[in-house]
């Protein structure tokens, strides 16, 4: 309960500060929106379904892109971890590529895929693929060797060995990488959507800018934060908790 109280105090203080600054009218409302304006904008956006549509489109895109990243990243990571040649060559390349913001791929994506959904997906995949790959590579190496040996010993090989042994055995070591990959995918998506005007939250945000409607801009920013937080808090936290319970690992907190 103490924690809940702290939350309430902190967020009411933040909210109070915002209200106070807005009420002092140091800046005009089109530069510094009031909480009421943002709330109205949120209400209106959900009322006329434009936010619902934007959320649905964005979520769909990020889920497809992220799923591709996870599958590809696991295969790549496993390959790099189990092959000395790949590790020596690709390993370094992957790490250095990670310093490249995924939106840098946008011009190429436009050329290769045209102004389409696929161009956005490409940027999303490039954003999260490396995190997943590096996490998988690391997880495969950190995973105790005994699991693989025991699995082979009990007759698992090939895909069965990967699916029933190596993948579950490395999950505790890659879950943070999967989480990071998700965050990168989400950011890449919003960035790409801001550049490519076709539905999605990023586009709604840019529309707010074009209409000089800062209420809408902040409303969409809040939506983006909330969605990212919900996926992180519900999906990944739940996964981590389940892993900890099963493996009997001490809880992280």
């Amino acid at each position, binding site marked *: 309960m103490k924690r809940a109280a702290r939350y309430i105090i902190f967020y009411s203080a933040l909210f109070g500060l915002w209200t106070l600054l807005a009420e002092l009218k140091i800046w005009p409302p089109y530069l510094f929106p009031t909480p009421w304006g943002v709330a109205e904008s949120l209400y209106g956006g959900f009322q006329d379904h434009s936010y619902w549509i934007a959320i649905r489109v964005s979520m769909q895109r990020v889920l497809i892109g992220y799923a591709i990243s996870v599958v590809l990243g696991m295969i790549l990571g496993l390959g790099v971890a189990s092959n000395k040649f790949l590790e020596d060559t690709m390993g370094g390349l992957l790490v250095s590529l990670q310093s490249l913001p995924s939106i840098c791929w946008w011009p190429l994506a436009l050329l290769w895929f045209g102004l389409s959904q696929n161009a956005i997906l490409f940027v999303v995949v490039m954003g999260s693929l490396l995190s997943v790959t590096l996490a998988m590579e690391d997880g495969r190496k950190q995973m105790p060797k005994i699991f693989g040996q025991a699995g*082979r*010993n009990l*007759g698992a090989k090939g895909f069965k060995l990967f699916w029933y042994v190596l993948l579950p055995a490395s999950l505790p070591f890659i879950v943070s990488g999967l989480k990071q990959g998700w965050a990168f995918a989400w950011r890449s998506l919003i960035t790409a959507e801001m550049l490519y005007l076709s539905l999605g939250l990023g586009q709604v945000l840019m529309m707010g800018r074009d209409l000089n409607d800062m209420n809408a801009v902040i409303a969409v920013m809040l939506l983006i934060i909330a969605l990212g937080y919900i996926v992180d808090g519900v999906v990944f936290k739940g996964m981590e908790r389940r*892993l900890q319970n*099963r493996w009997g690992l001490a809880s992280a907190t």
Partner: protein
Amino acid sequence: MSTNVQRFPAQFPVPSDARFPARPSDSRGKIGPVSVGHGTHSDFAAIPKVGLSDICLSYRTQSGERLLALDHINLEVKAGEFLCIVGPSGCGKSTLLHLIAGLHQQTSGQVLVDGKPIDGPGTDRILIFQDHGLFPWLTVGENVEFGMKMKGLPKAERQEKTRYYLRLVHLAKFEKSYIHQLSGGMRQRVAIARALATEPDVLLMDEPFAALDAQTRDLLHDELERIWSETGRTIIFVTHNVREAVRLGDRVVLLTFRPGRVKDEFRVELPRPRHLEDMHVARAAREILDELRDEINRSLEAEYNEGVKPHVEPGVSA
């Protein structure tokens, strides 16, 4: 000399001359390598269950030197035999088990099962690891089921067998538990059940009880002896504890320290069930230990002197 490996002779009158400590010179002796296909004992099938012929294993250390870990190991294990391998740490006895399991590849020589060379891991030989190697993401029941699932057995059969083997190790109530909820002894019993559930001909046990407390280990010795007699499996059991080897084995093979060679073999013909505290077990163990002492000293010396001095195989450039 009686070469018959008597299973649970305690139920029968035991001839006093079969007792190991009473006639050590009779019951102990070297058994040389026997080529495959030549049975030496009429009461056993001609082809040994497991045969090791001229197994050598060498590998390159980080400093680039070639280390000979196993040097021409020749061994034959008969079907239904309980063989114990003892030796100081670093003699390669665990490695030998991994070779038999097919998890590693020897440099030269052959591992034969029923007279045929093995090709990688197979569920006819299941290894039980020192730290059990159970899967923490699966329940106890799912762990036991795992090998059967890989084999593609139908679900109903799998579940029935899982329950059967969990009952065999007295863990029926824990089918739905996760591994971390069990004690060390219980985990090793799950590992035994998981190994047995794939119905292997040969159980390979790599110091399975080394990390357990004395009481638990005693209990598991009894259980293992019982399971062995009930299932008739061939067991190759590696340990550094000579008394444990005498307590359990029909035969004890002694390996030398680096490179691992077969130094000697002892036939243990004490009546079963045995106990770790039996005077006869202690005396037999003492005798083996006397021979082992040199090897242990060598291994300790190597440990004290800046880690382990690698043995360089002659003729192989570093």
